[in-house]
């Protein structure tokens, strides 16, 4: 050995016999992101809290199913379950927990690329046989799966609970496609939101800035849409209901809600079918063209941004 320093170590050997791993680098990247997130206690706390609607609904239905009949209210229980639109509960579940889901998304995705930009990690990724697409798909899949886990755990719990206890009240028969539709709707919402935060994250060198920007867009676009509706409603402008409804979907939250409504095939309801006081506040599901514009365009724009921004070296043009 030519070196005398303490760091020279003959244990080094050349690697010539290592088999190549199966599967693409995108999965390695996605798995690394997920391994980091599942260790965060706050992720699990937020996941449980975001499922609050399902927990409350499960408790209410259990109480009515178990005790109302004994207290002489058999008719009340029957009427109550007749009023419930089961598939709308998945929409209500999303509406109840959407701010917490946004917090989960920020925790998982805001720093996904921004923190790599800050620490020059892209030089490590791209000096290995890892393509830009591998990197972006890996980050996307990691964010998407963690958000899907956060949304699906409470929803699947409610699906099992309902299928076990309320089949005679139409849980599976009102809409036989309800469970596949709910799963597909959640997957679509997760894919949309994961794509948007991927694009936002690629623009920054700090996860906090990316997170603040995404939260700002999410909240402000929602506030703007609500304010616009409110102003138009208070002035009682006739004949613009369609425009008001369209405005509702011009936000990240609105677009996500629109996706879920369209896939579930519902306009939504407030807990029970004939809640007259709340019926006026229900916004019908959006037209398909509007939905495509509100969802597909941001997704394409965000992926385009990410593809343009993510590179191993600064390019001066």
């Amino acid at each position, binding site marked *: *050995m*030519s*070196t*005398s*320093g*303490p*760091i*020279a*170590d003959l*244990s*080094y*050997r*050349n*690697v*010539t016999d*290592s*088999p*190549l*791993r199966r599967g693409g*680098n995108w999965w*390695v*990247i996605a798995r*690394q992101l997920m391994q*980091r997130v599942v260790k965060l206690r706050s992720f699990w706390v937020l996941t449980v809290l975001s499922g609050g609607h399902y927990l409350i609904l499960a408790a209410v239905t259990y109480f009515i199913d178990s005790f109302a009949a004994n207290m002489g209210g058999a008719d009340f229980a029957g009427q109550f379950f007749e009023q419930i639109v089961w598939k709308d509960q998945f929409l209500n579940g999303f509406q109840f927990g959407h701010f917490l889901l946004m917090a989960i998304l920020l925790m998982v995705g805001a*720093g996904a690329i921004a*923190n*790599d930009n*800050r*620490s*020059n*990690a892209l*030089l*490590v*990724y*791209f*000096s*290995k*046989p*890892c*393509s830009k697409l591998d990197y972006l798909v890996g980050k996307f899949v990691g964010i998407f799966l963690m958000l899907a886990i956060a949304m699906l755990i409470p929803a699947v719990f409610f699906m099992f609970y309902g299928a076990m206890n309320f089949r005679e009240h139409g849980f599976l028969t009102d809409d036989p496609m309800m469970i596949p539709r709910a799963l597909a709707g959640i997957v679509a919402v997760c894919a949309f939101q994961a794509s948007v935060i991927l694009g936002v994250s690629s623009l920054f060198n700090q996860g906090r800035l990316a997170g603040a920007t995404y939260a700002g867009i999410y909240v402000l676009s929602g506030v703007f849409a609500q304010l616009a509706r409110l102003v138009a409603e208070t002035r009682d402008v006739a004949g613009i209901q369609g425009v008001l409804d369209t405005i509702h979907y011009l936000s990240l939250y609105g677009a996500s809600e629109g996706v879920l409504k369209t896939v579930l095939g519902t306009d939504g309801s407030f807990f029970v079918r004939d809640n007259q006081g709340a019926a006026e506040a229900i916004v019908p599901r959006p037209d398909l063209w509007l939905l495509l514009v509100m969802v597909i365009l941001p997704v394409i724009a965000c992926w385009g941004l990410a593809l343009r921004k993510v*590179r*191993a*070296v600064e*390019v*001066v*043009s």
Partner: protein
Amino acid sequence: MAVVTLENLTVQYGRFTALRDFSVAVPEGCVGLLGPNGAGKTTMLKTMLGFIKPAGGRGDVLGLEVGRDGMAIRQAVGYMPEQDCHIPGMNAVQFVAYAGELAGMPRNHAVRRAHEVLEYAGLGEARYRAIESYSTGMKQRIKFAQALVHGPKLLLLDEPTNGLDPKGRHEMLDLVRDISQNKGVNVLVCSHLLPDIERTCDSVVVIAGGQMKLQGSVSDLRGLNSNAVDVELREKSGEFLQAAARHGFELVSAKGTWYRLAAVGGHQELSQKVFLASREAGAQIRGLKPGARSLEEAFMEAIDVN
């Protein structure tokens, strides 16, 4: 055999040309890539790795074509960047194993290999600490380890001693020397620190202004002035210099009682002429040796002359 061959490579950043008609054949072993700041050294490395698309010319690395076989090149090459780089929230084992996985190793192989290379790089006791808490020297070593984890045939080291204290620098240079001399890995060390190159490399490529200025073995470069002799006298003597001039010598430099003289002829002949001149001038010689240049002198001459 050349491990890297570049032919008429031109690389541009917008209107700025970083490499212009650059051709070089980098031999096996430990090769130093020397040049002042902004000479195009890092651009050359990044072009080889496929990070930057050349505007013209061609090249190959380990027989793989630059531009076309980028993924295969990065599979066979390890790169230690100049800047600090790590993946946030990881300790050294996780980071290096992750780098191994990205290079295509199965997870269990990558973890085992990470422990080996971290031990080799001198991070054995600190390998479970978060990288964010590492000192500059430790960060340099972890960059070295991640470049080495997948067993590359060629290591590209960009300023490996940046920010290191003298002890850390010494140890890093020992590592570079060891990996190239004893482990059979070809190394291309990119630096503007001439002593580092002089200590670790067998041969040198000098770049300046995006063009190759000089290439050769370190001993050849230092010995280019083989027609020079260094003479030490007992005391300064103008008569000696006049006598030396009469014998065909030219004064290259004078420092105290040391004179570097150059003339045409072999060492034997030059020595005889020096003794004749000293006898004529009545000067007493204390020392006489061939006038070898430092690498710095050769480097300065290369970038000045060209």
